[in-house]
């Protein structure tokens, strides 16, 4: 199955663009959606051990080192869900058939890159697939070809170039001590020469490159521009999964499979996590643009994931993985809501909105669910992952970090309340009497994502003991 997850998107991309198949363009949306849905179903059933490995026949011909772990399952599931949400949002927001076709192509390309990132156990191929995703997202951000989009895209390209240079340099340095770039080989080589200056430099560069990709403070400043200037469906994809997989997932996998968390790397991750959690939340408080606020909120939530990872315990890493998944779901949900609002009102300025929940009840209710999950209000999924991280930090002796994680919860609540007050909750602002609820193809992903968030919270027990905790234990051996 891992092979299929890379081959099928690639094949679909090629088939859709065959010159003879212009007719296929009309149904391209549904083909892409079916592929993403297949990924969701296949991953979910694979988690349950229900289906045999269909792609095994291809394995001998693939040179890539693919591995399907519990962690990749969680990430692949999130990828499938967010890609679906983004596609449905695009269906509502992009009217033109050709444009929608192009968008579908880019999403499928990004999906291939993300799947590869989630499955690889080799540094150089990891780098290649991160770049595939990045190329697709450069274009997605500038999809509308307006000046804002180009600016956001340009910033992302520049910082990505820095990250790329850092990643490549670190791989080159690792090659000095390691026979090849597979995670296992690098880890073994590092264990031998762990105090060498070059090895430490390489590890530092690797982490820095991924910090940039993940948008952690102090490398966060490209992220609000990119998220807010991208067209709505692209920002769902970017915020929900692209930066999370190519930055945060890569950090989780690198720091657990190559470096040893709990050492110096763990401390760096922990400090950046604290700074990101606080700074992101404070910056979010001051925003007027709905998508920028959500973008800064991402910076803050990613800080939580880093705190869990930095704790170095199985519970903490499991909490980080769970929060990764939850964040993908609730942040996509909130961006889908933002798309619905932007589609109906034609603005993202929260000071020009007010009380629109009365006109857009579904969007209003689902936004509250996303917000509660993000703010860690029980019993939604985000509460459980945050509590896991907080308890893990406390048990690992990082009391200060634990206190910070708890208190940032108040800031999170504060900015989300301010968003609710300015956008949804309250009296309908004058002049907004004509607005309507968003179209069905936006409400479908919003409701589905909200249901996933609620279900992951209510069924915490099986989710924790069957899926999340085994992943944490596997990563921290």
């Amino acid at each position, binding site marked *: 199955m891992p092979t299929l997850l890379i081959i099928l998107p690639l094949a679909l991309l090629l088939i859709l663009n065959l010159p003879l198949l212009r007719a296929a363009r009309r149904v391209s949306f549904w083909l892409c959606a079916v592929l993403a849905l297949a990924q969701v179903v296949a991953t979910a059933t694979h988690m349950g051990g229900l289906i045999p490995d269909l792609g095994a026949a291809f394995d001998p011909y693939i040179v890539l080192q693919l591995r399907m772990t519990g962690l990749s399952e969680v990430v692949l599931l999130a990828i499938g869900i967010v890609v679906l949400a983004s596609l449905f949002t695009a269906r509502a927001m992009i009217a033109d058939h050709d444009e929608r076709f192009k968008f579908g192509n880019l999403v499928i390309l990004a999906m291939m890159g993300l799947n590869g990132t989630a499955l690889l156990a080799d540094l150089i191929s990891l780098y290649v697939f991160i770049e595939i995703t990045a190329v697709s997202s450069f274009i997605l951000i500038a999809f509308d070809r307006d000046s804002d989009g180009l600016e956001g895209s340009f910033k992302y390209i520049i910082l990505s170039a820095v990250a790329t240079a850092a990643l490549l340099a670190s791989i080159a340095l690792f090659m000095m001590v390691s026979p090849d770039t597979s995670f296992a080989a690098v880890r073994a080589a590092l264990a031998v020469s762990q105090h060498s200056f070059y090895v430490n430099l390489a590890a530092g560069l690797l982490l820095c490159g991924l910090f940039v990709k993940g948008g952690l403070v102090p490398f966060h400043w490209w992220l609000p521009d990119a998220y807010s200037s991208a067209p709505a469906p692209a920002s769902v994809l970017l915020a929900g999964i692209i930066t999370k997989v190519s930055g945060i997932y890569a950090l989780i996998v690198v720091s657990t499979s190559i470096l040893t968390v709990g050492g110096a790397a763990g401390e760096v991750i922990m400090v950046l996590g604290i700074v990101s959690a606080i700074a992101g939340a404070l910056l979010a408080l001051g925003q007027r643009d709905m998508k920028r606020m959500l973008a800064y909120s991402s910076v803050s939530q990613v800080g939580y994931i880093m705190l869990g990872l930095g704790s170095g315990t199985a*519970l903490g890493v499991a909490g980080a993985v769970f929060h990764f998944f939850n964040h993908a779901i609730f942040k996509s949900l909130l961006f889908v809501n933002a798309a619905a609002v932007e589609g109906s009102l034609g603005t993202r300025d929260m000071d020009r909105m*007010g*009380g629109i929940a*009365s006109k857009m009840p579904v969007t209003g209710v689902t936004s509250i669910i996303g917000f*509660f999950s993000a703010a860690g*209000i*029980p*019993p939604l999924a985000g*509460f459980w992952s945050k*509590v*896991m991280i*907080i*308890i893990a930090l*406390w*048990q690992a002796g990082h009391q200060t970090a*634990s*206190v910070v994680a*708890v*208190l940032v*919860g*108040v800031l999170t*609540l*504060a900015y989300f*309340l*301010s968003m609710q*007050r300015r956008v949804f*909750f*309250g*009296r309908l602002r004058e002049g907004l009497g004509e607005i309507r609820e968003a179209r069905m193809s936006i409400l479908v992903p919003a409701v589905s994502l909200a249901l996933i968030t609620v279900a992951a919270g209510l069924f*915490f*027990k099986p989710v*924790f*003991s069957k899926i999340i*905790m085994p992943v944490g234990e596997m990563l921290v051996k």
Partner: protein
Amino acid sequence: MDNECLLACAVGVPVAGAFLMPLVGRASKTVRNLLSLILITVPLGASIALIPTVLAGKTVYISAAMPLGFNISLAADGLAVFMAIVSSFISAVIALYSFDYIDHYENQDEYYLMIVLFLGSMMGICYSANLIPLYIFWELTALSSWRLIGFFREEHFVKRADKAFLTTVFGALLMLLGFIMIGQQAGSFELAVIRDKLAAEPVSAVAAGLVIAGILAKSATLPFHTWLPDAGVAPSPVTALLHAAVLVKIGVYAYARIFVATIAAGAFWDQAIPAIALASTLVSAGAALVETDIKRIIAYSTVSQIGFIFLGLSSGTELGVTGALLFILMHGIAKAGLFLSAGIIEQKTHVRDITKLGGLVKTMPVTAVSFLLCAFSVMGIPPFGGFFSKYMVITGALSGGRTALAIAFAACGFLTIVYLFRLFNAVFLKEAPSQEILVKEGSHTMVFSIAMLAVLSVAGGLLVSYPAEFGLEAVKQIMGLVK
């Protein structure tokens, strides 16, 4: 039905049933209203049915195992059943009153959803036997009160709803930290395990302080009290439910559950809590003396009376703690009556400033008499219910050796009398500033609700021995366990 099933119903039925409200509301308003009343009376009935068992000294316990020790455990002992009956009964009266009050506003489905969810979470808090579900239900009450306070959707109303939400969640998060510290020390979040493990080694003052911060934030005690008067912008039944009768009592109940029935707060907090309570009582009584908004006066009065409850709970004597429990009952009934009367006045006159009110005793005789009876109970005039509870709390403090505190609180009791008479005079007795302010009584259901609360305030005093005996049993049960 067996006891375990009753206990599960008391919490599960309202929490799950709340989410039916928007669905049922689409079909029929009447059915929805009745269903909400039924969902609130189910826990009341279930709790009453549990009385014989707990009076026999038994504890009903059910538990669903969860990872990390987050077990959803519920236990019914005397204290829990007492609190559950008080809060669900008052909530039922308030729900009855809402039928007419809320009838002509928008978002009624959301209103009933939140009211029932709130009551369900309250039941969850009463019966929780594990710190984690206690925290979960605690946050659920915070989120339902957020929606309820912002019910009218005006911008500055929503801001105040946000303030209440932020303050209580800030406290709750501190409390969660405290819970984690206690849980680490005891190796479990189960209250029964914590009680056994920590009988010999007291928790650190920091852990206790964090939990107490959460409690003070919820019960609107100094220094976290300002959200309560601000939350008076909510519809009157909501202010009565959340801010007089039930929500603020959650904090007090959690104090009783954790620091009276489970662990010792430590020497520092044993001294500090009554001092904080006294400061809170004095400051808010002063504020109630100068405020001119009818609902803010009553809200400050609540802040002030909560201090008496803390005094009783921290006295360490059976008499004081029993008095505090009675105080929860009597104050809940009487204060709900005051808020609901204020609601009738506000809805009929559209005025909340007492300088613009007056003379209403002529046109609203039933409301006026009910208001006065409830006010007597809050003041602590014999033989009303409030007298016995206040007397027991202060005597409890005296017998605990805190003479100076007891005297100071008695003086605060005098202030209560002053500001409530000032309020009664300004609204009902003094000459009306204009004729148009003289309006007729509210609807029958609404007036019936407050008259019932007034009668109960009287009956609570005349028949005080029944709740007092039950309270004493409950207190013996929990205090016997600690010592």
